């Protein structure tokens, strides 16, 4: 009797079954990336249009700067950083889940 085959063995031998696991991993990573992309695109993508269509925002002043100017100089950068941190954490969690799936802990 040989040891029970794990999905890791399937992949190392490039069987059809192994390919299935792999595709599932790639798809879940891609879905995560696309979700982050949509979040990014929704905010950064709508900002120019909003500023274009609402010129009245310029009359609002915050910290001595007109609001549109302030909006593109400061808050986008921490937003990118937060999105990056969240994404990296989720991506690592997905990989950990994959590890446990293909090579179940003894």
């Amino acid at each position, binding site marked *: 009797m040989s040891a029970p085959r794990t999905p890791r063995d399937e*992949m190392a031998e490039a069987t059809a079954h192994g390919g299935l696991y792999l595709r599932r991993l790639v798809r879940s990573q891609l879905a995560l990336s696309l979700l982050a992309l949509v979040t990014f695109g929704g905010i*950064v993508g709508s900002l*120019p249009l909003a500023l274009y269509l609402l010129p009245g925002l310029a009359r609002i002043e915050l910290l001595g700067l007109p609001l*549109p100017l302030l909006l*593109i100089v*400061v808050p986008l*950068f*921490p937003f990118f950083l937060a999105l990056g941190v969240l994404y990296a954490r989720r991506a690592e969690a997905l990989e950990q889940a994959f590890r446990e799936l293909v*090579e179940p802990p003894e």
Partner: protein
Amino acid sequence: MIALGAILAVTAATVGLGLYGVRLARTTSDLFVASRAVTPWWNAAAISGEYLSAASFLGIAGLQMKLGSGALWLPVGFTAGYLALLLFVAAPLRRFGAYTISDFAEARLRSPRLRVLAALIVLLIGGFYLVPQLKGAGLTLGETIGAPYWVGVAAVGAVVAGSVASGGMRGITYVQAFQYWLKTFAIALPACLLLMHLGGLPERAALFGHEYPSAPEGGLVVELSEPQPVTFPEATPYVAGGEPAQAAEGERVTLPAGEVRLPAGAAVPVAEGIEPLRGEQWERPVSGARDTSPVFVYSLLIATFLGTMGLPHILVRFYTNPDGPAARRTTVRVLGLLALFYLFPAVYGLLGRALVPELYLTGDTDSVVLRLPEAAWPGLPGEILGALVAAGAFAAFMSTASGLLVSVAGTLSYDLWRRGAGDAGARQGRFRVAAIAGMLGPIGLALVARGLDISVLVGWAFALAASTFCPLLLLGIWWDGLTARGAAAGLLTGATVASGAIFAGLLVGEAHPTVEALLTQPAVLSVPLAFATMVLVSLTDHRGRRAPDAELLALHVPEGLGLGLDEEDAVPAGTSPGRR
């Protein structure tokens, strides 16, 4: 004099550290592998250090002064580019183990011809990106020691080419990390001190109100070295060449060489190519004007968001990460470091419009960062801060230019010239010749491109990268259906459309604003076209080779399972893409 000393110190420190570092690293077989023990923070600082170029240090503030707040979309895109890299490229590419885009193209698609095509595009992008660095050098030496423009271009070109050829400055992580902190310090400290000294933003009416930038109390005196055609936004008396004169509103005048005087409070005339803007128009990040129109802004955001990953000198740095997750952590830190740096260029643009309005007259808005400290704080403090800024600017183009030249010379000598034949000595010799040859073209172009804005030139490099290497990387990593033929067709389409539009924009003068915006920044058109071509040609290419699972495995499978490239021989022989 202080400035010259600071510049020389930065240059000597950079070249010296580079040479010293190479001697240290030579004991091991591979520079990149040798530094794989580097932590994500050091790595992130090094990536940011190589990335922050003349465009970030000088160009953003210059373009902001010229066009208005619309220029501030540039740092947004420059930073967001790393988000794109993080989401789609960083971890998989690190696992794949290809050092350059040409490596990736050949290894992923098994086509040596594709490697040559990719190499040619690397040269094109590298050239476009080197020119503005040299322009920055010419400007900086001119501002600080009064040297003619060509002196700075030639001197920095020679120093960078020489040290790259001699083996220095080759991606030494610690040198580049030092450059990041130097640049951030050099832009942040003067910005904060000047704001405190001035007690806030002066001349608010010209910044946000109904006024044009105007001559300060006591009038404005400008020394012109050659006749300068200008437009007066408002009727004003002035003195040119000793002769009193009166300009009408909107009048175009060619001011003679020599001294020009404007009375206090007079609206400053603007050089050709600059539109006179009132504060309320100037501060709008998006408006109807050509260079801040929505089409232009979106196109610029797309170019920078997607172009960063395709810049030849960026990806190489990711191989100093030990594995995929470390590559991600490094990229996240880059986002933080860039966010810190990019808080400050806008300060120079705002203060520059208020305090150095003569740059509108001369057209040299790209030198606002260099000029501002002495204008805002006359005397020794301004001189010291000016020296600091000049040193930071030098660090900016030295580090970016050498990173680029290493990529360009590597591509020229390895990918295009005799394809890596001969022993190590012969390769080293070819690399040296290529480093010098690769600098000659950009020096020549920089000499004729003086009138073009640094940030516009850099925008082209990003547009080209986004229209060529971005689709290649994204589809190559995430779609097993990409074929060599599809990739080649897409690269050619993207490169042709993007560079064609840019050159057409230089030739065509006036056109419809939307057309002009698309010709200056074609990414919004060329990127989707390149993607579509790659996908469609790949789908119809029935004889093309689809990636087997083993190759996807190398890109996406997590470490620690013994399946990736670094671990076990899970990939069939002959597919291992690493080469150096």
